[in-house]
């Protein structure tokens, strides 16, 4: 294990730990790792050398992000009964909810860019 990898993973865990402890102490609705991400992002903005320290560990984790979902996914076997008894509402909510969300988000993104693009050409 390269020293950089070790430093990187340590730093990620420190930020997660700070995030978990602060959200609990302050009773915030934000999950700990998300606050940790935000704090790391702010630190990256403030310091130049930090990116190269966390980079190896971060890309190792993010390049196999799919793997990390597997143990939770296997949990479907515990919930077979509950999912089976409500399979219609669940499958419809998953399929159509996801399609609607993707379509609306993409439309808003395209629409906003057009709106702002036109505004700036008018201003020019």
């Amino acid at each position, binding site marked *: 294990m390269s020293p950089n990898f070790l430093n990187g*993973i340590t730093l990620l*865990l420190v930020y*997660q730990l700070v*995030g978990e402890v602060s959200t609990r102490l302050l009773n915030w*609705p*934000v*999950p*700990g*790792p*998300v606050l*940790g*991400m935000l704090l*790391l992002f702010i630190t*990256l*903005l403030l310091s130049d050398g930090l*990116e190269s320290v966390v980079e190896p*560990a*971060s*890309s190792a*984790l*993010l390049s196999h*992000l*799919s*793997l*990390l*979902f*597997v*143990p*939770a*996914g*296997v*949990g*479907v076997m515990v*919930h077979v009964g509950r*999912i089976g008894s*409500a399979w219609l*509402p*669940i499958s*419809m*909510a*998953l*399929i*159509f*909810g*996801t*399609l*609607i*969300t*993707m*379509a*609306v*988000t*993409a*439309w*808003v*993104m*395209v629409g*906003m*860019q057009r709106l*702002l693009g036109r505004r700036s050409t008018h201003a020019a």
Partner: protein
Amino acid sequence: MLPDSNLEQVWVYLSASPLFGLTMTLIAYGIAYRVYVWSKANPLLNPVVTAVILLIALLVLTDTPYQDYFEGGQFVHFLLGPATVALAIPLYRQLGKLKMLWLPVLVALLVGVTVGGVSAVGIAWLLGADTPILLSLAPKSVTAPVAMGIAERIGGIPSLTAVLVVMTGVIGAVLGTKLFDVLRIRDCSARGIAMGVAAHGIGTARAFQVSTEMGAFAGLAMALSALLASVILPWLLGWMR
């Protein structure tokens, strides 16, 4: 020849140790990933789905309860936390684009997170799902560790949410690019943002295969929408009740 009692002792050891669950998770994913690469990245052969099917088959055949498997699986599962923190890196790298497009991105994310929660809860409610299922469905589009945290806070079932999150990610990854083609949305930033909001990490992994630009926007959307969702969804559900 090994006597049966020795074999039994080996099995007693394996079922009590995290080694079995952890090793099988990595092997199943290794096979699933090779199948996926071999199929030239066919979205239907998403490695998460293949690995989950292989592992469930193994657990059912060996009569191993999920709790015993998770003794080993938790080591992989735990890494979702530091991986969430690590999302700060792609976010930081997209700083230039983020500065340029911050307003469209912010509005799209606010709308996307709200529609994501409301559409899932609304559809399931119309079709008669009970409250624990509705609350577990609400954060389905958010990346797993955050979604589980949200589910816990709003009174859903975190482990059910984790499963629904994975299913949502797979649906988004499989149907996303088709949907954008049908709707004639060609803009990479819009495709990426939509994929990240609706289908989190699994959608982001898929977006990176289409193009690095789409992937970067998807990663950005996943990270920022996780942040927004953890504030918006508990508030929205409190208000809906």
